[in-house]
């Protein structure tokens, strides 16, 4: 118990039928056997001191580097070597010697702890070989697929390149065409514009003449109406019967006021009335026409102030309903405004002459317009075609600009999406585009990130994809997803997880990351140490 003294692993050791082991102190790897010569003073491997050989593995740490205790837990920085015949040899920290936990499959780490360990090296070796074999198979087939992918990508790339070249050629032609059509259009539009202006001007003149006529007729009519005694004069008193003409709007048209309107005269004849008429025509109400009723102003409903509860409620369910209520109210108000909007202020009666539409263009003008319209249509069509062409070129160029791997082996993932359904969600990975998550049983989609960059380790950045700037998280970052790529025959999302809140991890197999199998890797079982 207290002193474990010198312990040598013996050749036949614990396991049955394993090849002969060379005698050396416990925990020493074969490569270092030479430093541990029995019965000769031992020098710490760092050279710091020399101790008698019986202090090697005596369960007391003498060397700073821990080299005197390869087979005990005495040194904090020591390590123990297990041979693990049938499997892979390994080093474990000294602290795992006799700690009651079986670490070495050959059980050699637990020689004095009472832990019941079984030698599992053969089993592990077999399993590992199986796994490696399977992996090798997958890698092999995957790599073949990858080569195809590379081929296809190459072809696709060339096709796209030449397509772009073609398109750029076409685009040039289109450019020219557009320019030509622009000239045609502009040429056609000049005469069109002039003809239209001529037509409009004629129409304006005609309208002015008509308006003058009408005013004269109205004046004559008014004169007749005002001239109550039909004596051919409109007198002050006759004018006073039209109270609406009151210039100071005090409700009565006084004699003086009326006289003022008549230019100081007691009465005016038709020709003098011509100078009075402009002063009164705007106010004048024809006696034959009923007075226009003033529009009834319905005041808009007072906008209801939403009732704001200042007492902030700390309790979830209350608050929720309150919030919702407020929202509802707001919306209601909005609709009410729409429905009950006050009648828009009526525009004054259109005068008769405005009702009359402009007469149609004459045939010559119309012909010019038609010709110009056609030139415009042609031009726009060509321009649209050019824009579309531009878009296409840009899209292809964008695609060509992506880093699809050293041999463009990831090209095939572009424009594709892969889904994985878990118990709660459907996850969707659209490589080089975005990752999203949608609840399986209804609910809106959440963006888990859009394409950011390759972010694998320096020696192979194509093992990880990073998607960033997804939907924001409460008190947290925007969602992001790391996609880990492993070699596989199929292209599938194999798992998703959220190791940290709003930071997702997706595992994805694709042949595109399969490495060329080396022959050595295909027979991976001769690392056994003698």
């Amino acid at each position, binding site marked *: *118990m*207290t*002193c474990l003294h010198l312990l040598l692993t013996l050749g036949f050791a614990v396991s049955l039928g394993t090849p002969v082991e060379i005698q050396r102190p416990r925990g020493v790897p074969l490569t270092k056997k030479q430093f541990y010569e029995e019965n000769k003073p031992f020098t710490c491997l760092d050279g710091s001191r020399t101790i008698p050989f019986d202090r090697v593995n*005596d369960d*007391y740490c003498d060397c700073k580097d821990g080299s005197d205790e390869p087979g005990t*837990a*005495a040194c*904090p920085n020591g390590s123990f070597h297990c041979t693990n015949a049938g499997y892979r040899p390994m080093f474990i*920290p000294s*602290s*795992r010697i006799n*700690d*009651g*936990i079986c670490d070495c499959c050959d059980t050699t780490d637990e020689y004095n*702890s009472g832990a019941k360990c079984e030698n599992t090296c053969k089993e592990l070796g077999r399993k590992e070989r199986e796994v490696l074999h399977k992996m090798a198979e997958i890698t092999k087939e995957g790599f073949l697929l990858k080569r195809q992918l590379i081929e296809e990508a190459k072809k696709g790339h060339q096709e796209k390149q030449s397509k772009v070249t073609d398109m750029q050629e076409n685009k040039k032609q289109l450019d020219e065409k557009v320019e030509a059509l622009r000239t045609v259009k502009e040429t056609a539009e000049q005469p069109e514009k002039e003809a239209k202006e001529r037509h409009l001007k004629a129409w304006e003149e005609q309208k002015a003449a008509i308006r003058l006529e009408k005013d004269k007729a109205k004046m004559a009519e008014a004169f007749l109406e005002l001239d109550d005694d039909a004596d051919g004069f409109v007198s002050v008193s006759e004018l006073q019967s039209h109270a609406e003409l009151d210039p100071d709007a005090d409700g009565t048209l006084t004699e003086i006021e009326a006289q003022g309107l008549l230019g100081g005269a007691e009465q005016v004849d038709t020709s003098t009335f011509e100078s009075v008429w402009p002063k009164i025509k705007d106010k004048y109400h024809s006696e034959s026409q009923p007075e226009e009723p003033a529009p009834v102003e319905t005041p808009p409903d007072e906008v209801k102030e939403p009732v704001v509860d200042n*007492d*902030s*409620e*700390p*309790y*979830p*369910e*209350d*608050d*929720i309903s309150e*919030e919702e209520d407020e929202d509802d109210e707001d919306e209601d108000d909005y609709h009410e405004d729409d429905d009950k909007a006050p009648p828009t202020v009526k525009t004054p009666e259109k005068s008769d002459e405005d009702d009359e539409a402009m007469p149609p263009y004459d045939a010559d003008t119309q012909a010019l317009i038609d010709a110009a319209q056609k030139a415009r249509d042609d031009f726009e069509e060509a321009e649209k075609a050019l824009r579309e062409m531009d878009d296409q070129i840009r899209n292809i160029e964008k695609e060509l600009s992506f880093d699809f791997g050293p041999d463009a082996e990831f090209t095939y993932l572009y424009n594709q999406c892969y889904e994985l359904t878990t*118990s709660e969600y459907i996850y969707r990975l659209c490589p080089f585009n975005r990752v999203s998550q949608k609840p399986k049983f209804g609910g809106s989609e959440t963006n888990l990130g859009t394409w950011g960059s390759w972010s694998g380790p320096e020696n192979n950045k194509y093992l990880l994809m990073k998607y960033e700037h997804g939907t924001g*998280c*409460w*008190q*947290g*970052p925007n969602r992001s997803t790391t996609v880990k790529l492993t070699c596989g025959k199929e292209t599938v999302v194999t798992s998703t*997880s*959220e*190791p*940290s*809140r*709003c*930071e997702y991890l997706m595992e994805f197999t694709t042949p595109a990351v399969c490495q060329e199998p080396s022959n050595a890797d295909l027979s991976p079982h001769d690392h056994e140490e003698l």
Partner: protein
Amino acid sequence: MAASCESLLPLVLLLCLSAQAVDRSNFKTCEQSAFCKRQRELTAGRSPYRALLDTLELSDSRLTLQLINDNNKVRLLLELYRLQGNMTRVKINELKPLKPRYEVPDVLISDPITEKLSVVSQDENSLVLSLGGKDQRLIISAQPFRLDIVEGPQVLMSLNSRGLLAFEHLRARKDTSISHKISSTVGSMWDSFKSMFSSKSESEQETEQENVEQQTDEDGQIKEEEDKPGMWEETFKSHADSKPNGPSSISLDFSLPGVEHVYGIPEHADTLKLKNTDGSDPYRLYNLDVFQYELHNPMALYGAVPVLISHSTDRTMGIFWLNAAETWVDISSNTAGKTMFGKILDFVQVSSEAPQTDVRWISESGIIDVFIMLGPKPADVFTQYASLTGTQSFPPLSALAYHQCRWNYNDQEDVKTVDQGFDEHDIPYDFIWLDIEHADGKRYFTWDPSKFPQPKEMLQGLMDKRRKLVAIVDPHIRVDSGYKIHNEIRSKNFYVKNKDGGDYEGWCWPGNAGYPDFTNPEMRAWWASQFAYDQYEGSMENQYIWNDMNEPSVFNGPEVTMHKDALHGVWEHRDVHNLYGLYVQKATADGLIQRSEGVQRPFVLTRAFFAGSQRYGAVWTGDNAAEWGHLKISIPMCLSLGLVGISFCGADVGGFFKHPSAELLVRWYQAGAYQPFFRAHAHIDTPRREPWLFGPDNTALIREAIRQRYALLPYWYQLFYNANRTGQPVMRPLWVEYPDDVTTFSTEDEYLIGKDLLVHPVTDEGATGVTAYLPGKDEVWYDVHTFQKHDGDQSLYIPVTMSSIPVFQRGGSIICRKDRVRRSSSCMENDPYTLYVALSSQGSAEGELYIDDFHTFSFEEAKQFVHRRLSFSANTLSSRNLAPDSQFSTASWIERIVIFGGSQPSSATLKNADGTESALEFEFDSTLAVLTLRKPGVNAAADWTIVLR
């Protein structure tokens, strides 16, 4: 883990977004708490209370006396007890309450043993009693009523010296008939309850009846007390408190002449030394789930221990105010002369300039029941308090090791990966924790079937690594007819009731939840039974429990807790509130003991606590944040808890809310490694922060901090054994060991572990040095990392790097370590010890070594342990048995002995118990005067002596 806001409902998110720190408006100020406001409006002055000395009754163990309030003629009954161990108990209740008032059960471990009280002298206005000891006297002054405890010519403490005794008697409501009916219903329930249990004889009851009549006779001249707002109902925000019993609060003041430093009354995120509360709110004791609590604030937090410790160079004393209702404590400074008058001036001489601290306690209901612990030394106060409420439970060793927690480890795979991560990075840990997401829909005692489909497989995987797991079990039970736990509690009628008699329901993690009535012993027994392996499916012996949210937290309740008019049997929640969390942890710990048929020591962590909670497990400081200020405050918060019995305390390493910088995380690990409960924890919305996620340099720093913890586990374990036996705190303020050194009285940036290790963690960002105060004239301290020797009684500037954790071992001490750190504490159980002998300036040292099986009750029940005294003097180191009647065999041995501060010997001889002798090899480092004895190899349980020549 968590506070009231979470992803439960989208709106809560909105609320939280705006809440960067605590939303103070969710919690009452004294002004908003009707009784606190009423009481605080009373100011110091002449007390209306008069002691009726002619009603004195004195038996061997008890003195009773009636007090009368001259304003309303209501009589109170004063009971005085002299308790064994230099304590006095003062109880004041109504002489004849309308119905019984709540007296806190289950906190005292037993009826305290009384000692004889005798009358020394008496006159018409005073009574002097002997408290034994050195001239200790208790003086009762009749008018105005006050109590003074004096020792010789010194007043130690005065009660009601400022006239703030105020006892709101129960009364019938005058106006509304409805509430009267309710209270009379409860009253009649009481009558029947009482008649079942009352031991009073008929005649006694008759006498009481007479008293009441007599009192009524006097009523003629009494001016009726006016009702004040908030006496019969109170609203806070949208919550109404129906208060069917009306006003019932109590208050009493204590004056401490000569005292300038008072401590205790946790839990507050505040300094160790309590602050003067004039002009601010009093310290509040009301267990609450406070979301993102603020520092340096007297607001209530998750737990409450109504114990205040006073200290001066003359004496250390304690006041234990045994009341579980909402309580406020005012602290103010005074000069002693102002409160000394009357009879006591015959006894004492007072300088009017002498400092004094006045303390006033206010509680909402219950009775006045105070234990005055008279010290005189800090250790005496701890012993006295432990004799009342018990000592710290002795945790299994692994619970003192490192705990890895996060809200949440997502699934079994995650648990496995984290477990492997520790091994890959060669970092030890003992416990991995599962927060609320592990349960199926927050139904505790169950497992989420998709994330944890095979819990036993997971637990077995951990067991194979000699590690353990903690799963959370909260006291809010999802109301769900498909949930066995809920159905059973409902059918057994074990839920807390609302004021109308239905099951009380509130919102918590699972949504609508019921709250089991843990004050009911039958309920607790049933709860405990649910931890049996055949009840709690998927549980195994390496699974332990964590009780969170046991304030109780009720998201939609007033102040995020239960309505005060909810009912626990006949008592209102108002009466029992601060006790609820203690009962939850007690029932859970009982369950863990029972599932192992009494063999295994339990480990249960709780967030809410009360006086006595130390008996049931560990406490942590709740939902802190990843900020330097929170790292700093963890020290005074745990020191305050240690002073009032709760030694097993820790803060979430790294900070619960927010994302710590690598520097803060490393510093927190370094500090946490030297605090009793050492657990990293993180909020679900924070990025992952397992120790290896901050780059190899930081991983190495964290590994080293955790390894230092593991190496020191024997010392921690021995201190917890000691705490369990004696009630002495594990983590101590400096003044506890250096009570005469005034410079230590406010120190809270460093502390002692036991009495032999002084820790000054680095808690400042970018720190390049710390100034540590090394106490003790004629003492020496040794830096445990560099072995450098420093003199005591000095402030020492210590330059620090990121790897520095300033820790010093006291000269004169021997500390045992296990320097072979392995991946869990269980893996180290048989490993050898290294003894670190730090010599005093006189060349001597002492220490202890305690060993047992590290996890069962055999140490207690079968005396299966090793307890040894190690001492070094006159160049001889020896190990001697401290418990000859105990027996335990250990495989551990003594690997190495390192002696600091000695000189080079020419030989070292080991003498075994059987008389055999052998020479030991040694090395001596003359620059640091460190002597290392190579491999004594003796068994740790053996007697041996080593002589240096």
